[in-house]
């Protein structure tokens, strides 16, 4: 790991980001997040994303619980959770997750239980994919930060 150059890792990050943009998983709002990170707030992106993961998993659990009530699903409550998730996802640039929330909300407005279930499964799937990819991104970033620190002492010999 220490042998990988900073440039290589930066290229890896860019490659992954480009892929995620291409797939529509992330949109330009994610770049906005990155631009808000600087020396005064060096961990801003990971802090926000960590909060996002925490909140999203709570919301997904609640949605699953609400849908388990077959007889009288509380669609209004579902919509409240969905609006939260939509807002958060939009704010971090999680485009595909947000779009599934939109479809989910439409099904909920129609009190379509089967449609909601399908949407929830799709939402969980998209969220999972996003989370894995963002973890990957952070790992590369950490390695890059480490590689750039390790490099300099060697040079000054």
């Amino acid at each position: 790991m220490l042998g990988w150059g900073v440039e290589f890792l930066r290229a890896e990050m860019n490659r992954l980001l480009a892929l995620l943009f291409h797939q529509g998983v992330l949109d330009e709002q994610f770049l906005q997040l990155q631009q808000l990170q600087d020396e005064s707030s060096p961990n801003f992106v990971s802090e926000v994303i960590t909060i996002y993961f925490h909140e999203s998993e709570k919301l997904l659990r609640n949605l699953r619980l609400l849908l388990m009530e077959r007889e009288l699903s509380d669609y209004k409550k579902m919509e409240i959770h969905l609006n939260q998730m939509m807002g958060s996802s939009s704010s971090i640039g999680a485009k595909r997750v947000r779009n599934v929330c939109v479809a989910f909300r439409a099904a909920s407005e129609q009190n379509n239980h089967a449609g909601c279930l399908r949407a929830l499964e799709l939402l969980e799937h998209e969220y999972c994919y996003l989370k894995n990819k963002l973890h990957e991104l952070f790992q590369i970033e950490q390695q890059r930060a480490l590689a750039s620190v390790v490099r300099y002492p060697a040079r000054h010999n």
Partner: protein
Amino acid sequence: MGMAAAESRFHVLAVDDNVIDRKLIERLLKTSSYQVTTVDSGSKALEFLGLHEDDESNSDSPSILRNNHHQELEVNLIITDYCMPGMTGYDLLKKIKESSSLKNIPVVIMSSENDPLRIGRCLKEGAEEFFLKPVRPSDLKRLRPHMMKAVSKDQEQEKHEDEEDDEEGIKSQKHQQQQQQQQEQVEHYQQQSSPRPSGNSKRKAMEESLSPDRTRPRYSDIAAVV
């Protein structure tokens, strides 16, 4: 905070029930060198501002933020989300404009919905701006003129009162420096604002924006909204 002359920055109160959006708006505002306080509800905002609601259900808010400390924690602008449980941003806006002590504080509304009716309603009630979420750094540039305008208004009212002379001096200097710039900005802005066609598409509205660099539609002083 700083009684030292050099450190007088504008103080913005941000209201949003969504924790991610609170973190975002806080970061955005700090990047623009504003002092920021964030709260998660309209009722907490009113409490911070020194207004008391009928139902006092907030135990988390520190009780030191009362009227006798109001001067040190003066709020120069309130930016609030529209969609919040309980008191909406619109409700909060109304309460602020109905209050004799708070009505001069400029209020900006944020929303993820590009709804012309909602926008019109907010502007009519006295909101200075309506930002579409997610809010961008370029949106924040529109905040300063409103805060400067409010400062000069306050100065007129406080002329005959015994206030902190240092702070007055600073604001007065800033006011003189900024007055010309502010006037130009206001005129430029008024030229730009024209009724925009209704529609759900944010992108469509963006393309029709008169602003050369990008971005999202800005709403202010719209006389009639279709």
